[in-house]
């Protein structure tokens, strides 16, 4: 075991897998000598050389498009999009190409890859260094979406992702790159994809979160406990395909659900979770399913802490949901 923060855990996973699998290549803007603007790829260029740790020209569509070709040829590319906010120039390649390649070729080809990207607010990044676009990709058939909330999961999920057969969007909560730290095994291990973690069991309200907001939710859950509200706290880890059994079981037990995310509310992933749960657990529900989310505005700079659904707002949502009487 070693103490690592989330960034180090990502870096460790990349290094281990590159040692284990010579087909893994890392590519993106500034990922080489510099080791990435957040230093997630630090040291990889020195260890594996410029053929496997590749600084690309400034074009996200080229990064993903070339990665697709590499993948067809049998490499396992791990492209990085420097900030999730800059993923749109690659949108066509991701949505129309990567996600559909297996399907549209009748299964003749596949293009597994792990697209890593730091996402989310809370680092004073304003409109373009704060976005959480996960729901756009969840809506896209053919790509999976994974978000770790702690170093242990980050390493184990990333290792799983790099061994998976499908394209995966691996979104890293940059706000807690350094703040989230903990014990992480030094060698190889995996955390299963498509399994949520029930981090706290409880009887009254199910609270669902992921990434950086998981920690806000956790804080709110602790405070709720002080008010006598016993929450079940779920960290999704894989957003899609979501671990529906865990969600449904919990919602059936508590009958009350709060979903938290920092993306804008409208058509955010919260809406899908709400819909899935009410479809499955209707008769068990004792309160409206509650969403506590970012607002439907671009992500603001100065007021970012008001924009983000932080613990106090989540607590409010929990209390409202717990107290709801039809």
């Amino acid at each position, binding site marked *: 075991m070693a103490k690592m923060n989330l960034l180090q855990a990502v870096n460790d996973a990349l290094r281990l897998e590159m040692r284990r699998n010579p087909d893994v290549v890392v590519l993106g803007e500034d990922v080489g000598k510099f080791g990435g603007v957040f230093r997630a790829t630090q040291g990889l260029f020195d260890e594996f050389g410029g053929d496997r740790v590749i600084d690309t020209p400034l*074009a996200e569509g080229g990064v993903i498009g*070339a990665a697709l070709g590499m993948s067809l040829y049998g490499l396992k590319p791990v492209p990085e999009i420097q900030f999730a906010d800059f993923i749109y120039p690659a949108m066509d390649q991701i949505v129309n*190409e990567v996600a559909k390649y297996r399907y549209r070729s009748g299964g003749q080809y596949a293009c597994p890859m792990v697209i890593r990207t730091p996402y989310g607010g809370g680092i004073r990044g304003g409109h373009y260094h704060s976005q959480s676009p996960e729901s756009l990709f969840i809506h896209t058939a*053919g790509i999976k979406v994974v978000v770790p909330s702690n170093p242990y999961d980050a390493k184990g999920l990333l290792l799983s992702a790099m061994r998976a057969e499908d394209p995966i969007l691996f979104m890293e909560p940059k706000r807690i790159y350094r703040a989230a730290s903990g014990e992480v095994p030094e060698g190889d291990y995996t955390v299963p994809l498509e399994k949520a973690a029930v981090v706290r069991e409880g009887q009254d309200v199910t609270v669902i979160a992921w990434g950086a907001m998981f920690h806000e939710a956790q804080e709110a859950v602790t405070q709720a406990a002080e008010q006598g509200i016993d929450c079940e706290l779920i960290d999704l880890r894989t957003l899609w395909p979501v671990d529906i059994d865990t969600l449904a079981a919990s919602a059936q037990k508590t009958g009350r659900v709060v979903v938290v995310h920092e993306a804008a509310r409208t058509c955010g992933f919260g809406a899908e979770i709400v819909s899935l749960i009410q479809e499955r657990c209707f008769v068990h529900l004792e309160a409206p399913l509650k969403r506590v989310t970012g607002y439907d505005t671009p992500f603001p700079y100065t007021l970012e802490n008001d924009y983000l659904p932080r613990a106090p707002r989540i607590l409010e949502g929990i209390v409202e949901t717990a107290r709801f009487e039809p």
Partner: protein
Amino acid sequence: MLASDKASRDPRLPLKPEDVQAPDVLRVLRPDGTADPRHDPRVEQKDLLALYRLMLLNRALDERMVTLQRQGRVGFYIGSIGEEAAVLGSAFVMRRNDWLFPAYREHGATLMRGMPLQRFLCNMFGNREDPVRGRQMPCHETWAPGNIGSISSPLATQLPHAVGVAWAARLKKKDDVALAYFGDGSTSTNEFHTAMNFAGVFKVGTIFFCRNNQWAISVPLSKQTASESLAIKAQAYGMPGVRVDGNDLLAVIAATRAAHQRAREGQGPTLVEAITYRVRGHSTSDDPRAYRKDDEVKPWEELDPIKRLLGHLLHLGIWTEQEDAAVRKDIEEEIREATAAVENLPPPELESMFDDVFAKRPWHLEEERQQALSRR
């Protein structure tokens, strides 16, 4: 101070057949059927005859499919009439281990690389034996055994894939080359720029093969770019750009060979601009009379690549008019038989719709599949 100051033709005018005779355009086949010995790629006679037959097949297939579409038997068709030399000449240069990324007019290349005609036709009908399982429109065939990439409607998205493949080959110490086809209109896309730039920077063995057929549906080349030529765009990426008479099979082979050799030997990518002309509508959905005059088309029909190769074969004395008529009949028959064999195959099974989204079906697709099946 100006990087560009040499006199040249006005890019705002359409290309004329005469323009193909410009000194910077590679030509081999002369009007009299002889080949310019300076550039003749010296293709073996049996290959020449095979290529000629494939051009005829390609042409006959295109004509037949358009008819089937008109008869409502096929949903859509997009072919390469008049562009067969560009497609087949370039594909001919590529080795078995090389990769091809078609746009959507290069069915001849797919057939050349081993896709059985019947399987191709299954794709036309989107039936159960369609290699892409009836999922895409006709003319979006995929044939992995021939290293033919998956065809996508969004234009030029295959260009960075061809870069990635050639790049990966180099990283794996192979000399495999990847060739991507695209049209003149596609040079305006994001992906043209990105793929060319990546290929230039990483010196990968990709051949960018542009079928400059001078139209993008209704938009003529002169409204697509103000550059002097398409080949000149290569300079922006530090790679050579070559122009070739795209209706001249031998010239196309010669130009592609040079590019192929560069690619194989690690000298990097090449842009090939094959000048040709889209003598028909864009696809079965199009009616070109709405936007262009027939008399613009006529002179280009004179340069028909099949006629020109036939002239050469006759000149060489390795082919006769009688053989020609016979083989054309054979081909018609071949297509008719293949069509008859597959036209009435059943559609894909309903449950197949839920396969291949992922390697394994997750719970939600399993659920949707069950629902769909229960409804039957």
